């Protein structure tokens, strides 16, 4: 198992390196920080623009490979460079990463757990009313883009506020500024702020997971080993849980990795819409400001998160399925 995971890790490291380089090259050539400086008022001189660009390792007259070298060297020393405003990317990164991770972790775990449960239950009750209801529900959820979902939730919260005369559920930011009170009050405040963004992220995941889990569970329902389990005297419920679900969750690990891809995009939308100052929001802002180093930092974050999810999925898979441990 360790060897299996080590092999995967090596592969991911190769992927990560290639991806980081390509994304930097793409960002470095596609974005135009020069235009950003040239548009400043009063218009700086060409030499001064050049100087500023070079200082920030953004000068498009330097070959992109060379710029990447500088950037990568910094990266290896734990320095992500400076934003286009000259502030430290590291600081911004450190501030925002927790905001994003909070959202991503809670959203993905919630979506996965609920989705697996709903899917398995739905499969066992195939074609009953509960299955049909869940199916219709998941289809509607699947057909709603995350950003639209977030917008709808926000609009709902606004409507609730207007109706009630005060804020029922918070829909901007991730904490109430200058909140008095102890740690308990802070936690409660956090949780409340998490509610809508997490919901908009988790529900999409829930729908996806539940559809897949339903399908794999249905596969398993006809499996010979389930019949064996019943033949030796286990009740259907026990057999389903111990032999059926246990096997049917294995393919979910693949789903987990795939779902994380979508999740990151979704998080970017959610953050922007709910005013969370996370990585996603930063990214959108940075693209609009031609802030190459910030964009590169977010790209790096995305790649690492996605690969970490992949590795986690591999580890989960290996832990759940003895058949992959060999080799």
């Amino acid at each position, binding site marked *: 198992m360790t060897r299996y995971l080590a092999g995967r890790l090596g592969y991911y490291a190769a992927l990560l390196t290639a991806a980081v380089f390509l994304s930097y090259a793409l960002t470095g050539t596609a974005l135009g920080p020069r235009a950003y400086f040239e548009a400043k008022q009063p218009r700086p001189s060409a030499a001064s623009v050049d100087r500023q660009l070079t200082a920030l390792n953004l000068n498009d007259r330097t070959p992109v490979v060379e710029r990447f070298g500088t950037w990568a060297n910094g990266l290896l020393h734990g320095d992500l460079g400076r934003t286009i405003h000259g502030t430290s990317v590291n600081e911004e990164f450190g501030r925002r990463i927790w905001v994003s991770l909070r959202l991503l972790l809670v959203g993905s775990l919630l979506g996965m757990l609920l989705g697996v449960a709903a899917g398995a239950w739905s499969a066992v009750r195939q074609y009953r009313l509960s299955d049909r209801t869940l199916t219709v529900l998941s289809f509607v959820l699947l057909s709603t883009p995350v950003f639209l979902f977030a917008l709808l939730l926000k609009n709902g919260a606004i409507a609730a506020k207007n109706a009630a005369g005060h804020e029922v559920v918070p829909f901007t930011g991730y904490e109430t500024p200058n909140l008095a009170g102890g740690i308990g009050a802070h936690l409660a405040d956090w949780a409340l702020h998490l509610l809508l963004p997490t919901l908009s992220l988790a529900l999409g995941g829930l729908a996806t997971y539940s559809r897949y889990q339903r399908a794999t569970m249905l596969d398993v329902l006809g499996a*010979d080993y389930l019949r064996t389990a019943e033949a030796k005297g*286990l009740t259907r419920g026990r057999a389903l849980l111990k*032999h059926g679900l*246990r096997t049917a969750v294995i393919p979910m690990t693949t789903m987990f990795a795939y779902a994380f891809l979508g999740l990151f995009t979704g998080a970017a939308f959610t953050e922007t819409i709910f005013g969370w100052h996370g990585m996603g929001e930063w990214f959108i802002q940075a693209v609009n400001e031609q802030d190459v180093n910030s964009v590169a930092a977010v790209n790096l974050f995305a790649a690492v998160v996605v690969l970490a999810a992949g590795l986690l999925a591999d580890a989960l898979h290996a832990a759940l*399925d003895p058949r992959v441990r060999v080799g």
Partner: protein
Amino acid sequence: MTTPLLTVRDLTVDFDGHPAVRGVDLDLHRGETLGLVGESGSGKSVTALAVLGLLPATARTGGSVRLDGRELLGLPARQLAAVRGRRIAMVFQDPLSAFTPVHRIGDQIAEAVRTHQDVGRTAARKRAAELLDLVGIPDPARALDAFPHEFSGGMRQRAMIAMAVANEPDVLLADEPTTALDVTIQAQVLEVLRTARRESGAALVLVSHDLGVIAGSADRVAVMYAGRIVEAAPVDELFAAPRHPYTLGLIGAVPRLDGRGGPLVPIPGRPPAAGEPARPGCAFADRCPLTEDRCRTAEPPLTGTGTGSASGTGDHRAACVRADHLAATRPAPAEVYPVPALPAAVPRPRAARDSVLAVRGLTRSFPRHRGGLLRRRAGEVHAVDGVDLDIRQGETLGLVGESGSGKSTTLYEILRLAAPQGGRIELLGQDTAALDRAAVRRLRSRVQIVFQDPAASLDPRMPVGDVLAEPLLAQRTPKAEARRRVPELLRQVGLDPAHADRYPHEFSGGQRQRISIARALAVRPDLLVLDEPVSALDVSVQAGVLNLLQQLKAELGLAYLFVSHDLSVVRHLADRVAVMYLGRTVETGTAARVLTRPRHPYTRALLAAVPLPDPPAERARPRLLLAGDPPSPAERHLGCPFRPRCPVHAALAPEQRARCATETPPALPAAPGVDHTATCHYPD
């Protein structure tokens, strides 16, 4: 007679209104073995599953199943669960899919123990180890921690049996327990089943399509056809004096290793698929040579046919209006069924015929890889490790061996038409190592292959006409001409030329195999490689295909390389035989000599393991069980590769043994000039 342990009365099962079992009555007495025989779709497995209520939810079950007088059908789930595994246990066909892949074998067996007995974790584990020991799994304590995929097929089936007898059930239902196994392993497993039955005193219901397995194990037999029992009798009587034409045909359709029984009797038509709507009257009427008008009016009941018969012991019942007639006349199968007259090939002396295929010292190994992107080599698998084959024009070479013996790899190496890794392949006089592209293309048309599974070897998305034209087009035959050949080919294999625009799924298994054969014949090959061509077919259909092959060979002067695990079929079809073990040919020679006077200990063991569809002969036969599983081809041994399992070697004096351990035996003829070689230091 004592009251039966298990009684089944008028059992019916249907799936969404399609009947699969239509009124089955069975009695099972303490300690006896009941054989349930039938072809695919006959409802035999469904019957077994219905007894335990293990059918999917879409099945509707009717009738009555009583265990010791207690009705099982319609029992609340909890009470039924208490019966399952405790009083009635089941052994399933495919032990790989029947074990949960993610739990350890030991845990799964212990679970069976703990479900019914109030014992602790360690006690259950200990019991599991005992059970594994009982079924002959070496090193049971370690085997407990193995996962199902780490076991070989035979070991898995043993473990399955161990799990079934964990709670000393009264009834053991075994659903095709040896179907996926090699003959030597099958013999082992059947032996284990007997032991387990003896130890637990359980009555056994043995479901099988294989008359040989039934003949050797059952006390009584029930034959199923189209969801009903058509004949039930004590085993000797059933085989000696069948009273239902279907049973008679079945017995005549099975090729026999002892060569007795004459030409194979094909039962015309095909068995009805499960759930096919029944027509009024006898379900067998469309295929029955004895059918009369009254057969089609009402379904004949399963009744005893008086005591007038010669060996009228026990109850012999048959569902046929002419059962009395059959009981009185006791015809041979060939007297009832029309048997095709096969044109006999004029045998020219072997030396006068051209060589079609000559393989010398063929080897092929595959690297084993580890790791992901940067794959490291981790040893080699010697799949083929010294194969010699020799086929002349117009003859059939039967290539025999168990799974993993390298038969298929040998075929694919020959068909690659490229330089082999080691050794030499000469096809129609041409060395495959020296071929250029044009020569390869030309040779492609002269050697063709027919695969085992007709469902898999025909592209489901292509009409049969296109399937047949494809090899011609690949040989750059003009389209129009290819089209013209299609009806001709269909006729040649006994199919209706008008069906050229149908898709493969519209044909039955036997017909699809005929299409495969037609496709192979399209380019007029000299050599046909037949890779287990009938092992996916039902016995009654298989006979027809075998007859077709014989007929084509005689008419077209083809040579066959016939690969099979089934020695009886090989005995029936082959002129010469080559036996493979662990990637090597260990014995070659004329079929008559190799299969009647085997010289290599492995061949002898193989032959001894094949069950005969003849109860007295089967009982009288000496049992020679080969120990263990075939070793892995990943390891190479010094000396004779068969040594670890060789009974001859085991009986040798120590000084003689040394030779087996150090020298690889060469292929030596039985006598100068005799076509019979064996690679053994101590043959005969």
